[in-house]
């Protein structure tokens, strides 16, 4: 059986994507605060919602990335 090797580069990439999701969720929160004229304190008090949104975004991204990888893998095999 082949060993799965998770490289430092891969871990770094995943951490960056997760952080990106968190920033995206917090930006959504900021947008909502402006759109619905809510107090700025919601930037902190809504952190639970932000984290859940970030996790959801990360999972959705993961599915998209898997699909893309799978399609690329098939394309490469056909080319060969």
């Amino acid at each position: 059986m082949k060993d799965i090797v998770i490289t430092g580069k891969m871990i770094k990439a995943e951490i960056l994507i997760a952080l990106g999701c968190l920033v995206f969720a917090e930006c959504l929160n900021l947008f909502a605060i402006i759109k619905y004229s809510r107090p700025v304190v919601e930037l902190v008090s809504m952190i639970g919602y932000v984290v859940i949104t970030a996790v959801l975004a990360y999972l959705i991204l993961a599915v998209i990335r898997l699909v893309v990888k799978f399609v690329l893998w098939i394309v490469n095999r056909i080319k060969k």
Partner: protein
Amino acid sequence: MAGGAAFLASTAPWLSSCTPEKLAEVKKEKARVALIGSGSRGQYHIHNLMNIPHAELVAICDNYQVNLDAALTICPTAKGVKDYREVLSDPTIDGVIIATPLYNHASITLDAISAGKHVFCEKSMARTMDECLAVYNSYVNHNVALYYCMQRMYDEKYIKGIKQIKDGLIGDVVGMRCHWFRNADWRRPVPSPELERQINWRLYKEYSGGLMTELATHQLEVCNWAAGKIPTQVVGMGDIVYWKDGREVYDSVSLTYRYADGRKINYESLISNKYNGMEDQILGHNGTVDLTRGVYYLEEDNMIPGMRQLLDQIKTKAFASIPTAGPSWKPELKSDYVPHPLVSGGISVNAGQSMISADHDGSDEILSAFCQSCITGEKADDVVGEAYSSTMLCLLGNKAMEEGRMVEFPEEYKIPYMKF
């Protein structure tokens, strides 16, 4: 609870006779009161009276020995009496609390007023419209305080709720929706058959107005309080749907009361299904107040955190399309409104299942206010007017259901207090 004369005048004028300042003035005195009718509600009042520092329960009267004995066990220092006239002729007694069945509220109240006693009577005011008018006239012509136990008028969440409604919280009041659902037969065990009507008086028309005078009376009062008016017309239907046990009063009622400006109270009560519980809802064009739970809901709710509003909107847009019926049609399901409290801190909520009452539903406050009036002699504004109006509406509702027609508020029973 009461803060500011303008607040009292606009929302709950009856509170001006029992402000904390006025209470402080009488704190060394005690009202000497007697209880007439020591059944379940009477015994509940005894417990409350024992916690009111300015009250002394000196006599308990009941013509049913079992209930008299039970009450004297709770308050052994009170004198036990079987005939209420003995209480009325005692000059040392300042006021009486009447917790007898509805059919004798009027006669005992009239006798007590004539005897110069201050009176606290259970709701509803009386069994018939003529009796209501007789009591009202007697009250106007005598210098005694008269209270009816419409405890919502003294319940903090109702007072604050009505104040906020009057301040425009939910915009224009456009309707009211009240119901009281229970799943219980209303029967009490009877030790011997000849006591059936005496103990289960609620089930017989001679003694009781059924669901209307027992339950609806509280809720109709709240609607009028919120509307600042009295309905002019009522239609309704009443039936014995489930408890076909020889009772005469309906176990299911559904009525619509209409104000002159077209607003309506939709009232429903059923005692064979409790799913919907008890609710007193005031509907405004900007929101809804549920006074029973002490909460309000806004149609456009800007108080919900922004992130939640945004996610809700995304969710609605993503999942609520109805492809079969085209984009313009969407079922108007009851939305997921967020409740906001009317009163900060913990509040007592009456689920409506108890026959006697819930804790801190205003019953203790109104009893305390009455005892204060026994000392000061000050009448509580509007309590009698409110009780008269709501009782009349209950009796008119029963008339509409019995006769199967729309009933108008009769001219001869209108009193100056009422605005239509």
